[in-house]
């Protein structure tokens, strides 16, 4: 019986957990972080159950207040949702374990607001993914964004300004999305996604729909940091506390991409955005430019977090490229890359946080000898970086393979070249770090081993292991994704 209510439990537990945090914190501040871990763990378990249920029994639909859609708010879970839910909840869960020490050092004494916001952020993102109502999507988007602004602002000296700029961009984006949703509503009189997808084909001829699509696409592009609308991302990720950077890099932009996929391919029919209006091909070009620009900008950085942030810009390009190419292979690759980028980028940011935790070093040219000092952490870094480059058998390779194949399938040679060229550029900016970390130190004195604390190390190693395992057994996620993709793009 309780399994019927899983979709809403996912959200209730989150909000319950968030608002219970201050009370927990009043008892003991130290308890906040385990509490957040507990709540996100519950959410993760529920997400896993949801995925299992969806795979076993087909799509789920939950009517809030028992109101039948389109009148009530519906939580609709299909394979795509469930897949992204598992990723988001899983990353939130593991990062929360990691964050105890990391945030304890970087943001001391602020456990209560921190973990309240943490849970709000995670719940907001899960809400975006699970909801079947476009306005609800907007609300959750804003909830999570607000939490993100606040969390970013908890970082160092420059974080407030980074957060402010992000807030301005984020508000523009949210307002565009709201306006776009408003147009959809005015035209059709409904906000339910399933209902919209039935009603919209009736008005495909009208230019107002184009305005709505344009607004929503631009809005979501800002949220996903699609080049050239990425400007908020590097500052925000650089100045945010490390654990928060890891969380945001792993999940937040992905959620935006999920929303994009959902609106473009479920609410509006694929054939409309591919053939009638070339939204998708426009996105692919932006994505391709973003892939290269992100990589090149990443090469120019010397702050490790900023470098990773620019690399995110590039990697987001991959996902959007896959989505934009809009054949089932590229789409599979794109959605798989949501998984792979979440795994590797979260891991990499966590490693950078661990380095900062132990040494305070941010400059990649000062990392000499780190391979001896923190062998396991740096080992995880190598795995993550190799996956970013796309070396088999890591998960990054699997998604790149599918993306390149998808581009070939679409006959877009340019994108094949872009994808492959970018892996070389990625190699350039990661190899600098390898060289510094592992080589050229044997003449100096013996370096003491000084690993990150276990509560940080374990999540890092788990991520590295997942990068590897998901790469070796990539056919499992691919088969799951394919079921959904083939349903949308036969």
């Amino acid at each position, binding site marked *: 019986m309780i399994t019927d209510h899983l979709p809403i439990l996912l959200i209730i537990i989150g909000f319950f957990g968030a608002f219970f945090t201050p009370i927990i914190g009043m008892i003991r501040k130290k308890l906040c972080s385990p509490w957040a871990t507990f709540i996100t763990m519950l959410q993760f378990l529920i997400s896993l159950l949801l995925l299992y249920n969806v795979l076993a029994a087909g799509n789920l639909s939950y009517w809030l207040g028992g109101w039948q859609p389109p009148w009530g708010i519906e939580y609709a879970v299909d394979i795509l949702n469930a897949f992204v839910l598992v990723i988001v909840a899983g990353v939130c869960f593991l990062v929360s374990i990691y964050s105890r020490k990391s945030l304890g050092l970087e943001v001391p004494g602020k456990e209560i607001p921190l973990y309240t916001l943490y849970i709000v952020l995670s719940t907001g993102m899960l809400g975006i993914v699970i909801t079947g109502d476009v306005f609800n999507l907007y609300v959750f988007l804003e909830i999570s964004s607000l939490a993100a602004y606040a969390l970013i602002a908890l970082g160092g000296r420059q974080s407030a300004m980074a957060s402010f700029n992000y807030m301005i961009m984020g508000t523009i984006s949210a307002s565009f999305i709201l306006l776009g949703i408003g147009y959809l509503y005015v035209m059709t009189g409904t906000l339910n996604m399933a209902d919209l997808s039935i009603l919209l084909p009736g008005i495909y001829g009208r230019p107002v729909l184009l305005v709505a699509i344009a607004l929503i696409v631009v809005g979501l592009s800002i949220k996903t940091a699609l080049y050239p609308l990425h400007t908020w991302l590097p500052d925000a990720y650089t100045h945010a506390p490390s654990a928060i950077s890891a969380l945001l890099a792993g999940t937040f932009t992905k959620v935006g991409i999920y929303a994009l996929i959902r609106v473009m391919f479920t609410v509006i029919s694929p054939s409309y955005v591919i053939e009638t209006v070339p939204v998708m091909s426009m996105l692919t070009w932006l994505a391709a430019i973003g892939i290269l620009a992100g990589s090149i900008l990443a090469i120019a950085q010397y702050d490790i977090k900023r470098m990773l942030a620019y690399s995110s810009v590039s990697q987001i390009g991959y996902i959007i490229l896959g989505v934009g190419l809009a054949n089932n292979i590229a789409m599979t690759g794109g959605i798989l890359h949501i998984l792979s980028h979440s795994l590797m980028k979260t891991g990499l940011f966590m490693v950078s946080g661990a380095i900062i935790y132990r040494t305070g070093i941010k400059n990649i040219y000062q990392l000499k000898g780190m391979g001896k000092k923190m062998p396991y952490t740096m080992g995880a870094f190598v795995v993550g970086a*190799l996956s970013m*480059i*796309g*070396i*088999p*058998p890591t998960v990054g*390779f*699997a998604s790149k*393979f*599918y993306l*390149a*194949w998808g581009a*070939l*399938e679409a006959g877009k040679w340019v994108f*094949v070249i872009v994808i*492959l*060229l970018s*892996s*070389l550029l990625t*190699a350039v900016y990661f*190899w600098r770090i390898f*060289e510094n970390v*592992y*080589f*050229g*130190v*044997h003449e100096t004195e013996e370096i003491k081993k000084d690993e990150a604390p276990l509560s940080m190390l374990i999540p890092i190693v788990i991520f590295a292991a997942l990068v590897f395992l998901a*790469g*070796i*057994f*990539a*056919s499992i996620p*691919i*088969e799951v994704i*394919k079921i959904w993709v083939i349903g949308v793009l036969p």
Partner: protein
Amino acid sequence: METITSFSPGLAVLVSLLGALMILISGRRPNIREGFSLLAGITKFGIVASMIPVVMSGKLIELRLWDVLPGLPIMFRVDAFGLLFGLIASFLWIFTTLYSIGYMRTLKEHAQTRFFFCFAIALSSAIGIAFSANLFTLFIFFEILTISTYPLVVHIETPEAMKAGRKYLLYLLTSGVFLLFSIIAVYHYTGTTDFAFGGIIAGNGIPANMVILLFVTFMIGSAKAAFMPFHSWLPSAMIAPTPVSALLHAVAVVKAGVFVATRIILYIFGIDVMSETGLALAMAYVVAFTIIVASLFALTQDNLKKRLAYSTISQLSYIILGVAMLTPAGITGGMMHILNHAFMKITLFFCAGAFIVASGKEKISEMNGIAKQMPFTMIAFTVGALGMAGTPITAGFISKWYLLIASVEISQIPLLLVLLASTLLNVAYFFPIIINAFFKKPERELSYKEAPLFMLVPLLLTALISIIIGIMPDEPLALVSIAVQNLIGGT
């Protein structure tokens, strides 16, 4: 063709991975660590050798592991050609391990654990390449090979070495990207990446210019084979410790490149497609050019290891040349040369390393009269050099003979001339070394002795074996002839 399923190929790959793990764990105790290294080498060779009877009886050994991507499994299939390469790599690993122990300890090198660890991984992937049943599996091991050899190349960690390492990566990662592209394209067009005796390109309606493009990208993708103009990483990589140069840059890595090129030419494109499109001939001329030019380059090098590197570039092209001639004799010659060159070149590199360890000398101009101090090493070196030139009773003669026959068979006189000219060039760049070492008087009195036994014994053994192959080539020839029969009969 009959296939049997067996875990042996998987085990052969796994053994050295496990070995690598044990090496890492026992890193603090050198004796145990090297014990594991040796043990893994011997076990691995045992496993590979145990497959000989099955393959000789004309069967294939297959092992399908899980699907990494849907429809793209990790799959091993041992045929005669793969087994040949696998045997060479795993057999020579034992010698190289012994040799490395002597080399690394005498020079008191740092980071020996990393060295042996990466070595084991590299070997594992070399065997993986040898036994791959499809391009996909092959690519995975190919990339692992690139990554795992990088720390070996930059082992000494000087700025110069790092620069060489960057060049190494630039070439090999770029070629990896090309290879990946080609694999995806082949998969896209044909729906499979499996190696097949007649090739898989034919009959899929791929446009002709696409076939040519694919061939070009494939060949760039196998730049590990170091044919021109994608060769310049190899001389740079000579900055690595000598055992690395010996095994990896004479046997495993570059041979892997050649092996891949051969696989692609014969098992992906197939003899028919290659000859119809004229790609084979074009390829033959590219490598013929490489043979001559690399030999000329070799003449100008004073650093012994660099000279050997250019010699490698030139000799590797023999193999591809043989394969590209597409006649049974040519293919036999090419495949045999994989074996022959491996033994001869590893002998030469071992000798070069022995010179470094015993005398500290790397330059040819400093080696006058060295034979008096290190007679055994120099004799082994002479054997290797004679083999390179294709002198009868050495291994090199066998392969060169087949190649010459093939070039006559397809009546390409320029190729024949190239082969002959190259022999002369080989003589030109090897014999001065030998003559000077034996007969010229050194400027000063030399005070060093032979290299340690750990190094001397392996190099003598490999020299001996290369003579044995030259005298009694029946066994390897039988293996090669099975491979050739499969290819010719399989179409």
